[in-house]
């Protein structure tokens, strides 16, 4: 839990964050974004700082399985949530299927946006499994990921190298290769992850 001064005067808190399955205790200034907590305090530099305004997606991580912009989340608000960064996706030496698909498809050039692209794609696949529509999903029928769907769903991740032509096929490969897996918990408010 967060240790917060009861008179709400303190501008720092001692808190515990669950990151990639491990618990960390940190003393943080409230201004610290989740992104800065990960990068500067925990040494997890996979998540990147691009714009720091929620416009580029380079900082994308998973919070209770949902993709979010870590730059706009204050670390103190992430207490009790399960945080997954790009460092936490692989299973030992076995890459996550999305990571493997990015390599197979050469879906990057400079690589700066790649961790955010990959975390976002993991979120996209979970959202699609849960039947979440996008702006281009037809009203009737379920979600079928195709190029238009992936481009729309991944629009929150910018790539200044313009590697989209390979990112889209990589995400589609990962979607096609998916083993049956649970969707994200849509009724998160009724679960234990509050």
């Amino acid at each position: 839990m967060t240790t917060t001064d009861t008179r709400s005067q303190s501008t720092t808190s001692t808190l515990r964050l669950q990151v990639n399955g491990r618990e960390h205790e940190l003393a943080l200034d409230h201004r610290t974004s989740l992104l800065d907590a990960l990068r500067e305090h925990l040494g997890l530099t996979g998540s990147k700082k691009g714009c720091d305004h929620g416009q580029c997606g380079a900082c994308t991580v998973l919070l209770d399985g949902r993709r979010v912009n870590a730059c706009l989340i204050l670390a103190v608000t992430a207490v009790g949530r399960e945080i997954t960064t790009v460092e936490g996706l692989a299973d030992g030496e076995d890459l996550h299927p999305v990571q493997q698909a990015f390599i197979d498809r050469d879906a990057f050039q400079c690589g700066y946006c790649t961790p955010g692209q990959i975390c976002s794609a993991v979120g996209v696949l979970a959202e699609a499994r849960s039947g979440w529509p996008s702006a281009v999903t037809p009203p009737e029928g379920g979600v079928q990921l195709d190029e238009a769907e992936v481009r729309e769903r991944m629009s929150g991740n910018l790539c200044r190298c313009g590697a989209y032509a390979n990112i889209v096929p990589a995400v589609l490969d990962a979607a096609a290769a998916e083993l049956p897996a649970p969707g994200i918990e849509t009724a998160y408010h009724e679960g234990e992850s509050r």
Partner: protein
Amino acid sequence: MKPFAYAVAEAPVQAVHQLSARPGAKFLGGGTNLVDLMRLGVESPELLVDVTRLELDRIEPTATGGILVGAGVRNSDLAADPRIRAAYPMLSQALLSGASGQLRNMATVGGNLLQRTRCVYFQDVTKPCNKREPGTGCPARTGAHRDLAILGASEHCIATHPSDFAVALAALDARVQITGPAGDRALALADLYRAPDEDPSRDTVLDPADLITAVEIPTSREAHRNSLYRKARDRASYAFAVGSVAAGLSLAPDGTISEVRIALGAVAHKPWRARRAESALTGNPATPEQFRRAAELELAAAEPLPDNAFKVELSQNLIVAALSTLAGVEEA
């Protein structure tokens, strides 16, 4: 960013009390706008009261057949809700047309309604802005105003409200439930937002300690089910609207319009309910010519500036296109 205290609210009344007791305090929802504004120096609260752990995250039917959406529901959950998609398509489409997948996972219903304008002068603390610093002036009139208001603006401010969601809620006659220092109350969404008039610093009629706790969506009717949201923007996805329309239509057996609902986005300080167009259309045939005439009537009140004059025709075209689609007729 200036240092600030942080507290987690455990009940709406407690959250309101915390804000009443500290004039420099603000509620924190998803943070997608507030944290950014703090980083830009536009906002500098002394205390953030986190309202995301309140029990305000349910989507449930009301006794009268409508739907009550908790203010803490994330935009993505509401957009994906099967009841919303079936009964109020314009609402789901408006949400899905806004921001990115990541931001929709963070942004709350209450925060979406209370987000601030994206006018570049408001967001740049080195520039004058009557909304940010009353009395300093509005450089937008003679500066960058391409994205700004054409309806209901004042000489003091031509900001637009950036929400897509609120435009659909305006068309649906949604109501907002509020817990405030004086107790609970409810407001029509149309009465929540204000025109800039003499005091553009206030976007809404709310007291700073008023907490939006829920949005009430009325019982679904044909003009809610036969509805859509159409958004024009500078790129295909992940951009604010330069113009948008939420529209719903129902036809009588003889083909005339029995009910029509139209609200415009990105044209005013608030979601712009097109009441003139609606009354001009009701009872008349559902033809592209009628839609065009009504759209022109609604936009007759527009007072565009040189660089946003295109929004007049754009908004008219959006109305005609949306209603033509809903009526199943070819556009004129």
